[in-house]
């Protein structure tokens, strides 16, 4: 038996649509000022992760698909509600559908050759390795905690992060672009003051949803921004332009800047984003390393030795994508049963207990997403396959303030 944790799935076109599909949409037939002809063709090599696929993020994803982007990774745990209709680009029949999956299908229909993957779960549950190949990360979430998480992941992976948001009552759009080039720049958490920390503590939700359904905020919700669709659309368009400027090097550099647009005056203001030296986010940059054969055939000790050239230190922590380390399972018996192996994340039972007949379940107190060398003990030297890992996409190694994302070497390095 398994629970239903969100899974990252690549979206395919229905067979009939496949027959009609003609690959990428033609690239915009235009020459950009100051660029070589065909500069926009470079978009086909890019993969962009979009966190938050609502009224802004969803539009950004579709705009990028229309330009024939190489790949999109769409992350959003929520579904459309009736209150989404005034601001989101959806039809009434979309109500109830997963935002990530619905936007993914739309993107795939627009650009069949674009690789589109949807993750209808919280970004915290997405393995870091899934974002490692992204050229940039876009976020348009409605929770400050998601901003911090996306900011942290982008910092670790040194990915440019574009944050598009609106304030409905003042018709204001903000697009922040965190360059994350050398770890010296700002992250979203750097910009928080007392008001944001208070809203973070209350997990206030900044919903763009309009209409009567959103009129009265529920407990733990900030008043809905009640944006207009037009202002969300403006945020998405400005966000895409900032992405293009940054990734294609168009115009003045936009890294570590905030672009603000006010709908009442049609004025724009650009200001720098500066790092807060007291920011509690981890501003270190993860190294990336590849090992030459399938990870599951290696032990953690071997993988670390090959990837870093040195043995795993005693304070090492390991996180294997999609897996948890389980020390003990519980059943109807008084004492927990030892497990000591990796279990696919979300697996709810480990078979029947021969003594009491009840199903054994991993005990959360004895389950680790990141497991230390101290807890692994001798298991650090055993092949992962013998510890329950059939296929390992990545290993995240943390040692003190440093970290390395270890992945298997692609069989054909030239393939995307």
């Amino acid at each position, binding site marked *: 038996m398994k629970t239903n944790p969100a899974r990252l799935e690549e979206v395919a076109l229905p067979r009939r649509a496949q027959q009609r599909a003609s690959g990428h949409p033609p690239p915009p037939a235009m020459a950009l000022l100051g660029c070589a002809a065909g500069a926009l063709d470079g978009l086909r090599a890019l993969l962009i992760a979009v966190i938050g696929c609502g009224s802004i993020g969803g539009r950004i994803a579709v705009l990028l698909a229309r330009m024939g982007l190489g790949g999109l990774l769409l992350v959003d745990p929520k579904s459309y509600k009736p209150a989404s209709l005034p601001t989101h680009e959806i039809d009434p029949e979309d109500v109830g559908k997963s935002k990530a999956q619905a936007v993914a299908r739309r993107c795939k229909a627009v650009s069949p050759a674009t690789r589109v993957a949807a993750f209808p779960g919280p970004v915290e549950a997405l393995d870091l390795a899934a974002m490692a190949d992204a050229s940039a990360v876009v976020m348009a979430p409605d929770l400050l905690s998601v901003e911090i998480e996306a900011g942290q992941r982008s910092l670790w992976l040194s990915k440019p992060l574009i944050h598009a948001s609106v304030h409905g009552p003042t018709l204001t759009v903000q697009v922040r672009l965190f360059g994350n080039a050398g770890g010296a720049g700002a992250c979203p958490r750097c910009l928080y003051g007392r008001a944001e920390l208070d809203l973070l503590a209350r997990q206030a939700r900044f919903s763009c949803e309009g209409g009567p359904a959103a009129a009265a905020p529920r407990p733990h919700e900030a008043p809905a921004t009640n944006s207009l669709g037009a202002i969300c659309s403006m945020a998405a368009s400005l966000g895409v332009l900032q992405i293009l400027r940054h990734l294609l090097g168009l115009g003045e550099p936009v890294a570590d800047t905030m672009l603000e647009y006010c709908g009442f005056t049609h004025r724009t203001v650009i200001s720098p984003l500066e790092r807060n030296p007291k920011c509690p986010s981890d501003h270190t940059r993860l190294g990336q390393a590849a090992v030459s054969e399938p990870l599951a055939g290696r032990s953690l000790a071997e993988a670390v030795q090959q990837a870093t050239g040195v043995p795993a230190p005693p304070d090492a*922590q390991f996180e294997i994508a999609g897996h948890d380390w389980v020390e003990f399972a519980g059943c109807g018996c008084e004492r927990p049963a030892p497990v000591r192996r990796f279990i696919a994340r979300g697996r709810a039972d480990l078979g029947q207990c021969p003594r009491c007949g009840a199903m054994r379940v991993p005990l959360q107190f004895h389950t680790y997403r990141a497991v230390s060398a101290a807890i692994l003990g001798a298991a650090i030297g055993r092949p992962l396959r013998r510890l329950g890992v059939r296929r390992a996409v990545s290993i995240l190694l943390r040692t003190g303030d440093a970290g390395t994302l270890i992945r298997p070497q692609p069989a054909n390095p030239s393939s995307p």
Partner: protein
Amino acid sequence: MIPAHSTPAPTLDDLRQIQLSGIYMTMWELAQKECGGPAACRQRFAGELHDLLGLAQISGRMIVHWADLSAGLRAKVEIEMPVPCMPDPAGPLRVAPRALLGVIYPPEAIFMPQPGYAFIRILSPRPVWLSTVSVDPNQPLCLGAQLPAGIPLSEIVLMTYGALTLQTVQLDRLDPAGVLNAAAADWWQRNVHRIPLTREPFLRSEPNHAT
């Protein structure tokens, strides 16, 4: 540092200054040796574990059996307190004299608010009969919809004591903040005369203000 025979007795405000006794000092030092993660997390976890051990030392009702800082903070903590149990759904309420708790303080809890069920698993007794404790084998205890980022571990332990002894109660099954066992919520609504199970304060040295 508080001398062994100082007066007044150490309070919750003094946790960071408490000189840990032999076994707890050893436990603290060993845990710090294996402490992993970024420097900011290591310092915070060392401080939180010190406070937890100090709390056990002055409480007169709590023992820390095991602590680990190698991947976040985890500790196995026993607290002497009345804990309601219902081994037979149709039978009488049983009150266990102590609880063994699994305490989990993940690194992300330092910087981000966490759901109220993130920190405490009741390892024994079972099955605990409380609206805020789930009936699944993990027996998570819910301490509210959200707990703030960086909440001190000692505060979580005090909240746990209040919740398990029913000094603080949440019985409204329509309130999303905390009801994990609706049947227990209904049962306690019919048996409010049994609430709380004790009026004793957590620190045994504190005066009991019960009337």
